[in-house]
């Protein structure tokens, strides 16, 4: 059973939802306090986040640096735009690979849901092409490719 959903909306949005068995206050804190972020926002197995700056106030800076087990790494920078404690975060972010990717505008909502929290993260990309390059059409296509695999046609 997958608790996470990822879907596209229009041609510039990607929406991720996930339920957590904790109150919105706790999930919000885990998304904004550096020492907590460093414990879970790590990506694939073995990666670490030695640097985590998260200034949770409008205009505050965001900087996450990841290190991979085989050496090397990359970082993300961003800025907080709006914060409604325990319920809503709006920020922009970009990856540096090392060239910066186009700005990803992210609104994350935390709503009480049967004793836990429903998180809805809505990403807005600058244009349809960027979104497609990031993931959306790729996923759609990834699924098509899986069907093809299933049928053993390639």
């Amino acid at each position, binding site marked *: 059973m*997958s*608790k*996470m959903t*990822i879907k596209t909306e229009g041609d510039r949005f990607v929406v*991720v939802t*996930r339920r*957590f*068995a*904790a109150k919105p206050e*706790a*999930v919000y*804190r*885990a998304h904004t306090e550096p020492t*907590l972020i460093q*414990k*879970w*926002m*790590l*990506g*694939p*197995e073995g990666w670490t986040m030695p640097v985590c700056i998260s200034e949770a106030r409008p205009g505050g800076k965001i900087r996450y640096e990841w290190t*991979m087990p*085989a050496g*090397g790494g*990359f970082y993300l920078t961003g800025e907080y735009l709006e914060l409604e404690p325990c319920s809503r975060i709006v920020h922009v972010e970009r990856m540096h*690979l090392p060239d910066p990717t186009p700005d990803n505008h992210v609104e994350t909502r935390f709503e009480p849901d049967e004793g836990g929290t429903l998180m809805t993260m809505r990403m807005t990309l600058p244009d*349809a*092409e960027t979104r*497609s*390059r*990031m*993931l959306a*059409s*790729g*996923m*759609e*296509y*990834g699924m*098509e*490719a*899986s*069907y*093809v695999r299933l049928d053993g*046609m*390639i």
Partner: protein
Amino acid sequence: MKEPSQAPTLNAAFLALSDPTRRAILARLSLGEATVMQLAEPFEMTQPAVSRHLKVLEGAGLITRRAEGTKRPCRLSKAGLDAVDQWLAMLRDALSKNYDRLDQLLVTMKSEE
């Protein structure tokens, strides 16, 4: 990132996939090999227009073409599709792993209250 040599191909692949007509062409090719003429028909496009899309898909490593007389039938490229699949699987995997770790962290936070 981990394999820098793979990045340009993946960028080209995602750029190629950003166009709905090209995605439709790939879906058609998932049914089997097709010539430019066969591909042009359902899309109500001229053959040169289809050829331009095929050139992008070929450059991105998503299709291959072979020579058969004057025709150059196209088919999906397994290697190109595998690269895209792996990238997507990695992304989905990274997100779910993050949230599974967050579940654990939330349990710890609750017990510390």
